[in-house]
């Protein structure tokens, strides 16, 4: 079997707030000042096979965007490895490494903030392929036209600036910019969350068309379960920096095992649900500065036992391709 296109092994990402001078002095004098460390991503393992769409779902603050940025090479992991086609990116030679990082591109949530307002669209899309020698200067113009047509933009608008486009068109520019360096793998971080409902459908369709045309592989990060259900082959659910459950899309939606996954599925608003009487799970996602002992979900979990408050459950494989981190997955 060939190696997965992208794999992360035991990746952690910690952000530390360093002590300032006053804090250091206070510490020397015996005051309780400590460095504050946020475990944004905590020993996560993921594999994405060629041609697959992996959906990564979680609420704000769960570390899904940080994980996406580690995969895209924007953040270096604090520990753990990022493998591209089976090779560790950190230990690659210069050329291989550049090829690997070019092959993984990212599409951001906010199409207003992720495009340079002082560049024309032809430069936003055309700069990277020119710099990396993918096209020569003379071919660049035709190349940009071609990419713009592929994402549904009119090439005659390429002399314009980003602010002259609507939100949906800007997101297409962001997609065109990513596609221009011929990537194999796209990290889409809430790529449709900022768009209007009728425009969301257009961009989702574009993602699916591009997947077919270019054989792309996606890590699709979203908080919206219905979008992930539609587009993903496999889904991983994240809570407070850890993966709590992962399985094929069908299995996650038909037979979820983790109480958090169940709560997400039950509480996401759906069109076919009318006025209903239900008791949503209580509480909020805890501060990652100060996570609870044991299972991170235990303060909100309706099934929590003493074991859950003492011991953090490990991800265990409970079926083909189905992993879950819960002590009592069989009972819930």
């Amino acid at each position: 079997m060939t190696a997965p296109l992208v794999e992360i092994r035991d990746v952690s990402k910690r952000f530390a707030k360093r002590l300032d001078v006053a804090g250091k002095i206070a510490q020397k004098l015996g005051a309780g000042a400590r460095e504050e460390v946020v475990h944004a991503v905590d020993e996560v393992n993921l594999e994405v096979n060629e041609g697959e769409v992996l959906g990564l779902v979680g609420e704000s603050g769960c570390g899904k965007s940080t994980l996406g940025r580690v995969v895209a090479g924007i953040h270096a992991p604090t520990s753990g490895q990022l493998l591209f086609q089976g090779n560790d990116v950190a230990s690659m030679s210069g050329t291989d490494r550049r090829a690997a990082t070019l092959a993984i591109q990212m599409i951001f949530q906010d199409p207003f903030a992720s495009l340079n307002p002082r560049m024309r669209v032809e430069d936003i899309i055309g700069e990277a392929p020119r710099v990396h020698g993918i096209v020569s200067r003379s071919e660049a113009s035709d190349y940009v036209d071609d990419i713009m047509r592929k994402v549904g933009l009119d090439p005659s608008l390429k002399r314009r600036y980003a602010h002259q486009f609507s939100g949906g068109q800007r997101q297409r520019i962001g997609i065109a910019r990513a596609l221009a360096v011929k990537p194999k793998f796209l990290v889409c971080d809430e790529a449709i969350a900022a768009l209007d409902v009728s425009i969301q459908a257009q961009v989702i369709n574009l993602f699916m068309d591009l997947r077919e045309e270019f054989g792309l592989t996606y890590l699709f990060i979203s908080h919206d379960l219905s979008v992930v259900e539609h587009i993903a082959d496999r889904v991983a659910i994240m809570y407070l920096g850890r993966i709590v459950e992962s399985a094929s899309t069908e299995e996650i939606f038909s037979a979820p095992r983790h109480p958090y996954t169940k709560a997400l599925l039950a509480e996401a608003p759906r069109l076919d649900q009318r006025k209903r009487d239900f008791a949503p799970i209580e509480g909020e996602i805890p501060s990652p500065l100060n996570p609870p002992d044991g299972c991170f979900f235990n303060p909100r979990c309706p099934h929590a036992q003493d074991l859950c408050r003492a011991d953090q459950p490990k991800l265990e494989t409970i079926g083909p391709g189905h992993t879950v981190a819960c002590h009592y997955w069989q009972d819930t």
Partner: protein
Amino acid sequence: MSPVLEVSGLKTHFFTHAGVVKAVDGVDFAVNKGEVMGLVGESGSGKSITGFSILGLIDPPGRIVEGEIRFNGENIANASEETLKSIRGNRISMIFQDPMMTLNPVLRIDSQMMEAILAHEAVPKRQAWERCRDALGLVGIPSPEERLQAYPHQLSGGMRQRVSIAIAFLNKPDLIIADEPTTALDVTIQAQIIHEAQKLTSQTGTAMIWITHDLAVVAGLADRISVMYAGRIVEQGLTDDVIDHPLHPYTVGLLGSVPTANKRGERLFQIEGMTPNMLSLPEGCAFSPRCGFASEACQVPPAVEHVANRELRCYHPQSQVAAE
């Protein structure tokens, strides 16, 4: 029974240098006691401006140019600031998408909550404080006595939204206008807030206008749904009718483009084109350039017609759900 709020022929226009923006252009609806109306539309459709118009919160260059807003029988469109002050936060209150629009960052929760009571009623401070504490308890805030002493920045986003809901319900208003109150919140927190709002409206009989872009949210919450497009309500009816048997091609398209309405992995049904520029709206029906059923007739704006138990602005009502 007469409705709590009756809006008829409301037009709110903005007179900008670039031209007149008809943000709200002939809107009619009514809300009864204890009823939740979902006002659904995309950005720029005029749904928020409709809410602001009711509370008299339209600043120049905008103004209400036409129409009536009857609140408990009295027309409050273009009413005096004094009248509006006695209504705002007392008989009609508002919940915003961003709770920091409601909350003052430099005041403690107790001072701003008590202010909302004392501005409208002469009650002893102790009594006002007790009402604030009870209101926080009602919206599911643990240890309300402590929370009353906190500043807004010490609370999480979900907690702040609960506080602004508690403030909205403080004076037991007849009507609450909630403008995208859960859009910025996570799924599990959204479910909690919807649950609280549902409970409170049924307990107190307060009517509610829930403004949102998310049809799935109002499907589970509202009694009736009004769909707005480019300043007009294009379809209005009971939730079951509108969601299960939409008639306007725009409603059909919106519902059809929701992923759950489509087969997994297949292309989604999509509405072509872009949301219109409010400065240069197309002649006639504003949706016609994006509509697959547009004809010659659509060059003249369609009037409101009563079709199959709802109000509709369309010459070509659809009977089949697009996804079928």
